[in-house]
C-alpha cells in the first residue's frame, strides 16, 4: 500500500465516490419508477406476471459486460449506456418485491379498507402500498447493493466511479488504487444497506424486529 498515493488522490477519491453514488441513485430511482407500475400491472392482470418476470429475468441473466458492450455502438461510452444497463439489472429484483409486498397484504385488511369506503386507488395508495413498504424496501436494498457492485464494471465504458481505480490498478499493475477502489466500493454498499434498513424502520415502524 502506498499511503502517499492515497493522500495525493484524496480529491479524486471523493469525486469518484460521488460519481458512484450518483450512478447508483439514478439507476435504482429510475428502476423503481419503472418497476412500480410494472409490478402493479403484473398484479392487476395476473396473466402479465409470467411474461414480466420472464423478460426481466432474461435481462438479469445477460452478463453485464455483454449488456454494456451491446449498447456501446448505439449510445457510446457514455453515462446513458451505463444507466440503461444498471437500471435493467434492478428491474427483476424490484418488480418481484413489489408484487410480493402487495401480495403479502392480508385479505381482511383489504376488506376492512373496502368496508371503510376506500376507493380502489385510495386503498392502494393509503393502505396496501404502505403495508408493502418493508418488502419493497428489502428489494431496494438488494438492488442498491447489487448496483454498487455493478457500477465498477461501467469503468470499462469510461464511467465507473470507484471502479475506475480498480481498472487503473489492473492496467498499471498497481495495488494501491485497486485496494482503494475495492474497499471504498464495499464500504459504500454496507453504508447504503444500513441506511436503507434504517429508512425502512422509520417508514414502517410496525415491522420492527421482523426481518424480511
Amino acid at each position: 500500500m502506498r499511503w502517499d498515493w492515497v493522500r495525493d488522490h484524496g480529491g479524486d477519491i471523493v469525486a469518484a465516490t460521488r460519481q458512484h453514488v450518483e450512478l447508483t441513485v439514478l439507476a435504482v430511482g429510475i428502476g423503481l419508477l419503472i418497476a412500480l407500475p410494472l409490478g402493479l400491472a403484473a398484479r392487476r392482470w395476473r396473466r402479465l406476471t409470467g411474461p414480466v418476470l420472464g423478460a426481466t429475468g432474461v435481462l438479469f441473466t445477460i452478463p453485464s459486460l455483454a449488456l454494456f458492450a451491446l449498447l456501446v455502438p448505439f449510445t457510446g461510452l457514455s453515462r446513458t449506456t451505463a444507466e440503461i444497463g444498471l437500471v435493467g439489472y434492478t428491474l427483476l429484483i424490484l418488480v418481484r418485491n413489489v408484487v410480493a409486498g402487495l401480495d403479502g397484504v392480508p385479505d381482511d385488511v383489504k376488506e376492512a379498507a373496502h368496508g371503510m369506503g376506500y376507493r380502489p386507488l385510495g386503498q392502494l395508495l393509503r393502505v396496501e402500498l404502505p403495508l408493502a413498504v418493508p418488502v419493497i424496501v428489502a428489494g431496494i436494498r438488494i438492488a442498491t447493493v447489487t448496483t454498487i457492485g455493478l457500477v465498477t464494471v461501467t469503468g470499462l465504458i469510461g464511467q465507473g466511479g470507484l471502479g475506475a481505480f480498480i481498472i487503473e490498478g489492473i492496467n498499471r499493475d498497481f495495488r494501491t488504487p485497486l485496494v482503494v477502489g475495492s474497499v471504498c466500493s464495499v464500504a459504500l454498499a454496507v453504508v447504503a444497506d444500513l441506511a436503507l434498513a434504517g429508512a425502512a424502520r422509520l417508514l414502517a415502524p410496525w415491522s420492527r424486529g421482523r426481518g424480511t
Partner: protein
Amino acid sequence: MSLAGDVARWFTAGEHWRGDFGVPHRLAEHAAMSAASLLAAIMIGLPIGLWLGHRGRGGAVAINLTNVGRAVPSLAILALAQQAFGLSGWPGFGARPAFVALVALAVPPLVTNAYVGMRGVDRDVVEAARGMGMTGRELLWQVELPIATPLVMAGVRTAAVQVVATASLAAVTAWGGLGRFIVDGFGQQDNAQIVAGALLVGAMALATEVTLARVQRLLVPRGLRAAPAPAGEVTPA
C-alpha cells in the same frame, strides 16, 4: 455500412474460427473454466450449506454470505486474485487467479440456497422421519435433500450464470475466454467485434440457464414437481 452487416461479416470471416484466437478455442476455454470453477465451488459450498441446514446451525453466516458476496464487486475479486496469485504458471496465462476468483464468487449462493432449502423442509416431515427410526444420515439423504432439491438447484443455477458472466470479465485481468472479444473490441474501437463478443457471451449465459433449468426438472422428485420452483437468491454479474 450497417452494424448488423459488420457483425454478420465478423461471424462469417474464416479467420475468426481458427487458431488460439478463434471463436471455437475461446468458447472451449470459457466453458472449461466455467465448468471447472462451478464444480469446485459445488464441492466446497454444497456440503457446507447442506450440513449447516441439516444441523440447523450457522444460519446467520449461511444467509449473510450471499449478501456479503453481493457487496464485493466481481471485478475487485478478479483483480485482487490476480495480485495474489500472479498471471504466469499452470494452467495458462491468467487462468489461476481467474479460477480462484470464480470459485470464491460461486460459493456464497450455493451455501445460502442449500441452507435455506434444508431449513425449509417441513418440521413435521423431519419429525415423522425420525419417528420412523431414520438416522441423521438417512434423514439428510432420503428426506431433506430430495425436498430441498429445488432450492439447491436454484443456487447452482445462480452460481453457474454468475460464473459464466464473471469469466467474461476475467478478460479484463488478462485471461482469455469469450470476454476477450469484447475487451479487445473496446481497445481497438471495433464495434463489430464488441457486439459479436457480447452476443457470444449472452448466448452462453442464457444456454447455461436453460440447460440447468432442464437438469433441475429431472432432479426434482416427481411428487414435488407440481409446485412452482421457488425463487432463489439471485445476483447479476
